[in-house]
């Protein structure tokens, strides 16, 4: 299971890459493996204002539908349009495939997310 350093991680298995005031969000290798083959991704509209915890993305695998929640508050500034035709990119390259990015209103909301080592420990603990 690949875990990439330099990213922040949520307990719901999203990764967050921070570039200044922008948070770029995707799902982790663990998440894509647990979901199985992903067949549909419903992304939010650009410029939509979201608050932390809001449901912004719907990922559908062959087996299940899974909601992805906004890890921080802000405005959606970019979505990965490639996912409309190639949702399988999330399986093939989860860390190279972002889902959306968000212009944060309060970057301090990032405090408390895990780093790579903490996320690895989190996964190992949740397996037991």
């Amino acid at each position: 299971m690949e875990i990439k350093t330099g990213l922040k991680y949520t307990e719901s298995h999203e990764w967050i890459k921070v570039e200044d005031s922008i948070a770029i969000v995707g799902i982790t290798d663990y998440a894509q493996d647990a979901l199985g083959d992903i067949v549909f991704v419903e992304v939010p509209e650009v410029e939509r204002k979201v608050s932390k915890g809001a449901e912004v993305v719907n990922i559908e695998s062959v087996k299940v539908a899974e909601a992805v929640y906004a890890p921080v508050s802000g405005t959606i500034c970019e979505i990965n349009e490639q996912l409309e035709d190639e949702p399988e990119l999330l399986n093939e390259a989860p860390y190279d495939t972002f889902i959306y990015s968000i212009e944060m209103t309060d970057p301090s909301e990032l405090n408390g997310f895990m780093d790579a080592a903490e996320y690895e420990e989190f996964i190992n603990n949740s397996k037991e």
Partner: protein
Amino acid sequence: MKITPLHSVYANLPGTKLVDFGGWEMPIQFEKGILAEHRTVRNAVGLFDVSHMGEILVEGSDALAFLDYLLTNKIVGSEEGRCIYTPMCRDDGGTVDDLLVYVFSGQSCLLVVNAANTDKDFQWIRQVLDAGEWNCKAANVSGNWAQLAVQGPGSLAVMEKISKGFEPGAIPYYRHRRACQTAGVTALVSRTGYTGEDGFEIYCPSADAPRLWDALRAEGALPCGLGARDLLRLEAALPLYGHELTDSISPLEAGLSMFVKLEKEGFIGRDRLLAMKEQGLPRRLYGLEMSESGVPRDGCMVYLSGETSSAGVVTSGGKSLMRESFIALALLENGRVKIGDEVEVDIRGKRKTALIVKKPFYRRSE
């Protein structure tokens, strides 16, 4: 949870994902994943462990007559060696289960039933037997049998390689042959399946199952899980008990009238089914194909365009690789829609448009 005789063979392989399927711990997928497994069955050959299926043996001089009364399809007069698909109904026309009857002889048949229904079916059969004066008995022999399914256009070639003393290709569609030698294992082999492809189902004693599994794998059959099996049967529009058929859905509503012989004298559910047919079926199973992207799933409500009250509900849905679209089976009010009509499916609170299309969604080319 219950496990099959093959559980220990694959449970610890990397990539195997096990789930609770009606009280059985079964593989939903193996290493390559559901979509790759689906493609393999459509293009080459896949191997399924379906040992969770139940087997009930009915024997005695009245065996066939009893089954004619118990089941909706015609059993009396069937030749030895036939496999007969049939619903089993309640008095009110609801479906107890759908199953395959293997006609061994004029006095002996094996019923292959859905895993989760095995106990319910056996109880039902015993109850019907006890209520009449039948000269036959029923035994739940599920524990003795393992069942493997070899499915896909390459299945005959694989079967030929492991078979001795019989020609698997000489077994016609929906026929079986007993005491076949396959990979050194004595087995019952039938030309049947649940994928919409050519294929075989092999029944052998539980202890022999790992040997047969390994031999089939060695000939190139790819292990496939229940996830692929579900997608394959959905494309072929084959009903799955608990979805298209339940205690409260009749086989006529599920589009299975060719397996309900209403002209047959007195069988359980006949009066109600006949009345239902004469008065018009309240609901019917339709095929849907999404025009807008979204995955219709079991339980999604279906609406006629612009209407506020629903016309029915999705019973199964998913992505069709063969059509490259999202498809569903839905039980809708009869007569409200026809092929080509547009409907709306409520997917996670959003109404998305779909077309009523012909079933099946996929049919193999001969």
